[in-house]
């Protein structure tokens, strides 16, 4: 009988909470979008699946050993944890969880030890999160892989397009303002660090967003990552109306002069030059841009093909699996089902829209002053979302003029946007973090 109770107690049914049901449905929804609608499937399949796993009641996959001990509800364990955390012995689980979140590092370590001694362990997803994201390693490794897959040729052939990559980051900072504005008005409760992390969604670059969120606002990481990847997948829907509204038919028909060939030496020198500039001006961006430049140098230098291949294949794929599952671990009901998440989703789409508009408008401005014609449609590619945004520019260019192939021209601002948002991330980290 005792065992029967224990067995029932060990089922999920006995513990399901409405929030978990909702979150599992959201996880399944993300899987549907990823598989059926091909929304950034490489990330959203693991994130969605991780989200489902994280919300299995009683399994505690997304919790630390101490959190699992507190969730167990065992009074002896609770009393011991209360003692370790310096709380009243009769405290309930919820107040102890709160105390654990607030505790200083030594108390947290003591709580972890006590929980382990009582037979509780870190959940699988919690372990993955600690190793891959909390350590900062996974987003950096992905960034290295992206660097090893990026060709800066179009950018080097037409360096002016870097300004478009700069312009499109404007959305990031307006969004920061929006987030603190919502807080000022008392509608939401974002700190400056939260606002900075939310703004980076507008960078339209997944690993950058996850890296910044893991440093500045780990609690919001789940929502931020989901927003970033969802909107990147939605770029073909979000951008075209804005681009059409801000350009005339004549502007969209502009044919750009063909890009010059770029020598291998220029391509080798570029990542090193970028690295030096980072070293001089923005050390806080050194991890992100350093790994990016390293990946790119491995690709372009041509003498370490083995390493470049590893960075582009085995390593980035393995890391993506664990990064995705780890992000999913932040989709637990008590952290995700919150008015803040709604705010993040709204601010995120705002960031994309403003970034797109700024890119297009600055392109129009540059077109007035430059000597070479510049089709404003490639300005929207400055948000990054590589290579989706560049394809959108190409598609709209072809619509306006069936012989106007903008893809290569749009790749310049597109990869410039990656650098731009990494620079913006560096500013955030150095001004807000630490």
């Amino acid at each position, binding site marked *: 009988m005792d065992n029967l109770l224990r067995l029932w107690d060990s089922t999920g049914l006995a513990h399901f909470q409405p929030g978990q049901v909702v979150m599992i449905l959201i996880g399944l929804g993300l899987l549907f979008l990823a598989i059926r609608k091909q929304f950034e*499937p490489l990330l959203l399949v693991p994130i969605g699946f991780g989200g489902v796993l994280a919300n299995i009641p009683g399994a505690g996959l997304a919790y630390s050993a101490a959190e699992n001990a507190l969730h167990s509800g065992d009074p002896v364990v609770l009393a011991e944890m209360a003692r370790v955390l310096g709380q009243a012995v009769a405290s309930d689980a919820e107040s102890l969880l709160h105390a654990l979140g607030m505790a200083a590092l030594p108390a947290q370590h003591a709580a972890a030890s006590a929980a382990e001694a009582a037979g509780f362990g870190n959940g699988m997803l919690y372990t993955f999160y600690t190793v891959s994201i909390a350590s900062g390693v996974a987003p950096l490794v992905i960034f290295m892989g992206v660097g090893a897959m990026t060709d800066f040729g179009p950018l080097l052939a037409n360096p002016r397009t870097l300004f478009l990559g700069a312009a499109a980051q404007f959305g990031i900072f307006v969004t920061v303002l929006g987030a603190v504005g919502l*807080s000022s008005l008392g509608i939401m409760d974002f700190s400056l660090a939260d606002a900075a992390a939310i703004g980076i969604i507008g960078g339209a670059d997944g690993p950058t967003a996850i890296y910044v969120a893991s440093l500045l606002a780990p609690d919001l990481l789940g929502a931020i990552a989901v927003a970033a990847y969802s909107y990147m997948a939605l770029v073909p829907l979000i951008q075209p109306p804005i681009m059409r509204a801000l350009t005339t038919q004549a502007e969209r028909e502009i044919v750009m002069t063909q890009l010059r060939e770029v020598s291998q030496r220029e391509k080798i020198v570029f990542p090193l030059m970028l690295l030096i500039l980072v070293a001089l001006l923005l050390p806080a961006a050194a991890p992100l841009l350093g790994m990016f430049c390293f990946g790119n140098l491995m690709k372009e230098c041509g003498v370490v093909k083995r390493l470049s291949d590893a960075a582009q294949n085995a390593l980035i794929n393995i890391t993506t699996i664990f990064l995705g599952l780890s992000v999913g671990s932040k989709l637990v009901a008590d952290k995700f089902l919150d008015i803040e998440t709604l705010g993040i989703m709204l601010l995120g789409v705002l960031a994309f829209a403003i970034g797109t508009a700024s890119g297009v408008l600055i392109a129009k401005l540059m077109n007035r002053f430059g000597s070479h014609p510049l089709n404003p449609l490639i300005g929207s590619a400055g948000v990054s979302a590589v290579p989706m945004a560049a394809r959108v520019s190409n598609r709209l260019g072809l619509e306006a003029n069936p012989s106007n192939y903008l893809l290569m021209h749009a790749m310049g601002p597109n990869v410039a946007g990656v*650098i731009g948002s990494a620079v913006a991330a560096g*500013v*955030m980290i150095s001004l807000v973090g630490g």
Partner: protein
Amino acid sequence: MREDELFMQGVELMLFGVSTVVIFLSLLVLAIGLASRVIQRFFPEAVPAQPARQGRSPVAPRTSGPTVDAQRSAVIAAAVHQHRKRHRNG
């Protein structure tokens, strides 16, 4: 009080952020220009590294199948179109 302060911090962050991004990328534009000129003048390569492949995505596809195919067929369509146009004109 505190809310206003937060907002002002946000404004400051925006101003510093935007200017840093613009300054950084402007310097990069200058550096690229300089490097290109130095390399092309003093260290030219005998043979160009790779023929420019018009229409090829400079980023290896990060998404699977369909998008790549879409891209490829766009490139083919482009080629066909240019071919026809040339013949029409000539």
